[in-house]
């Protein structure tokens, strides 16, 4: 098991280095020169000596290998250098824009979880019923609708509705105010993008919850639990949900990691100055250091979330490799163990009351029990 953990952690390194190499090469393949762009921004011709001086200043005249090693070494020291465009430290540039992106990501996640998990579970439990069809259709619509279009339409709707109610159109504020300074203003700015992104996010999560739940409900250990007469509510809450939510949590984690830097289009629609827009700006300005730092940030979050999710999965299943040959053994033993706990040990009156195969508890007291299931063989405490 430790070997698996060490292996998994070590595999992070080649991914990060590979991503670093990819962004480094891609940025240098893009035609253009940041020094020329910077110097010619006022118009007019550019002096080659000034360009050379600028190259020396930014360290672009060194060998590419040296530049790459410098970048990777800086990344491992968490020193991202100075933005080639603005001259400010990259960390400062990102820190200024991170709060709004983070806030939208968190709010969208909350919206998604609140909507999707209960609906996904209901949809799985009532498979092929009208609720299921409605939920599935809504979910597919959420995935199919482009979020930027939803953004435009929602702004339009807010404008029209506010115009109809208050007599004057209302627009969300444009400048960002932290939540703790003016919660109302902050929320009125963030709520629309969060809902827009949250709908798509919820749709994805809902589908995952549904399919995970359906898959788990067909496992042998659920059948075992049903055969043992456990009430449906306990089967769902204690057995099925615990296992079904694992891939859902995975998905939520990955989507969240992706949202922090990936809200390019949404930020464009709602005119928000977040990390996503910084991304586009950095590439368009040929700002090598800023782009590299942003890509590495996104990749690192992605890889880290993946790692955490994998280790969590491993911690739950104890032996990830054995799962390749089928996991029902683990599931069954878990179901049996908890079944034993309920039936033999602690109080589980509901479960016992519904166990119709056995005589009532009073009749069984004081004698070895009739053996339906291994749990009942233990003396009752």
């Amino acid at each position, binding site marked *: 098991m430790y070997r698996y953990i060490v292996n*998994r952690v070590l*595999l992070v390194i080649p*991914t990060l280095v*590979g*991503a670093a190499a*990819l*962004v480094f090469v*891609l940025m240098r*393949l*893009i*035609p253009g020169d940041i020094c020329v762009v910077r110097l010619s921004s006022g118009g007019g011709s550019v002096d080659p000596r000034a360009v050379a001086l600028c190259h020396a200043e930014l360290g672009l005249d060194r060998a590419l290998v040296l530049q790459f090693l410098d970048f990777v070494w800086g990344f491992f020291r968490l020193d991202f250098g100075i933005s080639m465009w603005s001259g400010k430290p990259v960390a400062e540039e990102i820190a200024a824009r991170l709060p709004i992106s983070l806030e939208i990501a968190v709010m969208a996640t909350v919206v998604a979880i609140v909507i999707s998990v209960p609906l996904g579970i209901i949809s799985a439990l*009532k498979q*092929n*019923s009208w609720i299921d069809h409605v939920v599935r259709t809504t979910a*597919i*619509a959420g*995935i*199919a*609708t*482009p979020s*930027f*279009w939803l953004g*435009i*339409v929602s702004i*339009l709707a807010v404008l029209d509705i506010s115009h109809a109610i208050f007599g004057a*159109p209302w627009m969300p504020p444009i400048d960002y105010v932290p939540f703790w300074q003016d919660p109302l203003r902050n929320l009125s700015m963030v709520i629309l993008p969060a809902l827009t*992104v949250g709908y798509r996010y919820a749709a*994805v999560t809902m*589908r*995952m919850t549904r*399919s*995970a739940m359906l*898959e788990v409900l*067909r496992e042998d250990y659920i059948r075992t639990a049903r055969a043992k007469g456990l009430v449906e509510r306990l089967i769902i809450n204690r057995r099925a949900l615990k296992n079904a939510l*694992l*891939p859902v949590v*995975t*998905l939520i984690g*990955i*989507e969240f990691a*992706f949202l922090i*830097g*990936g809200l*390019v*289009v949404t930020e*464009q*629609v709602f005119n928000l100055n977040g990390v996503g827009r910084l*991304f*586009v700006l950095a*590439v368009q300005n040929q700002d090598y250091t800023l782009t590299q730092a942003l890509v590495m940030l*996104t*990749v690192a979050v*992605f890889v880290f979330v993946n790692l955490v999710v994998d280790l969590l*999965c*491993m911690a739950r*299943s104890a032996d990830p490799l054995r*799962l*390749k040959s*089928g*996991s029902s053994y683990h599931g069954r033993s878990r179901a049996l163990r908890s079944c034993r706990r309920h039936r033999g040990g602690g109080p589980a009156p509901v479960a016992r009351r519904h166990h119709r195969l056995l005589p009532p508890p009073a009749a069984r007291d004081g004698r070895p029990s009739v053996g339906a299931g291994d749990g009942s063989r233990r003396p009752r405490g």
Partner: protein
Amino acid sequence: MAVADLAADWIAPYNPTSNDFAAMTEPPSWAHLMGTDQFGRDLFSRIVFGARTALIVGFSCAIVGGVAGLVLGVASAYFGGRLDLVLQRVMDVVMAFPLIIMALAVIAIFGSGVYNVIVAITIPLIPRCARVVRSSALAIREVPYIDAARACGFGHARIILRHMVPNVLAPFLIMLTAFVGQAILAEASLSYLGLGVQEPTAAWGLMLQGGAEEYASTAPWIAVFPGLAIALTVFGFSLFGDALRDALDPKLCDRRSGGNLPKSRRHRWQSRRCGSSVNRRPRLSLFWSNRRSLVYQGETTIGISRISAFMTLPLSVMVANIV
């Protein structure tokens, strides 16, 4: 969609690029079914021609990305060892890499246009497909008939093409349909950002970029119709992918799943989906007779351990999106 694509020239009442400055931002009427945009171009004609762009991008991305992913995924699973390790690390890198940066870079290097957009969208689709295919193929590599084929002295190419590829086709086909929708969505997003298809080509994302925001309150039809077109198309492909998934996923082929249907339909329904389909589908017999092995609990899309190949489908498809 297909009809609109093939017969665009006959369906569209106007030339999608011709301007009529006498009829700018006109509301929908009999003359202009969906109104006109800020340059006086007929929206309905542009949407019909936009279908062509969307389908070209959608299908080429899905097919090229899917086939490349299939080849890489099956090869990675079949040969295993060092090749697998290296390929998977490369896939990791491409998958973790933000799609938008890839698109920006491709467009900055090669210039914008439909074919470069296809390249930009295809690259991130490859690892997603390869992962799902690999996780299915890994399970198939272990089944006895592959050993038998090897014992018979068949070459690698024959084993892969005749025995492995047909058995991973189920998740592959489902993914392909989902990819078409996702590629259309990604193309619309890129065009909206000004990084995709360029004017005057008719493309849905582009139509939203131009006047949609500016004229949103005075001429909402400019914003509404192209978006509806995108949403309905992707909806259709997703629905098709879902239906395909339901039909091909062996886990959903369960006697209990007929429980909610009326009794009169239950038997027929079950026998249609769960019965002895081996006999009724001789051409796909290999594919069907081994379908149990498709459900595979093991390593998946991004190294997550405890979900089967089928469940990674939504996962692998969704993360490729631009939001």
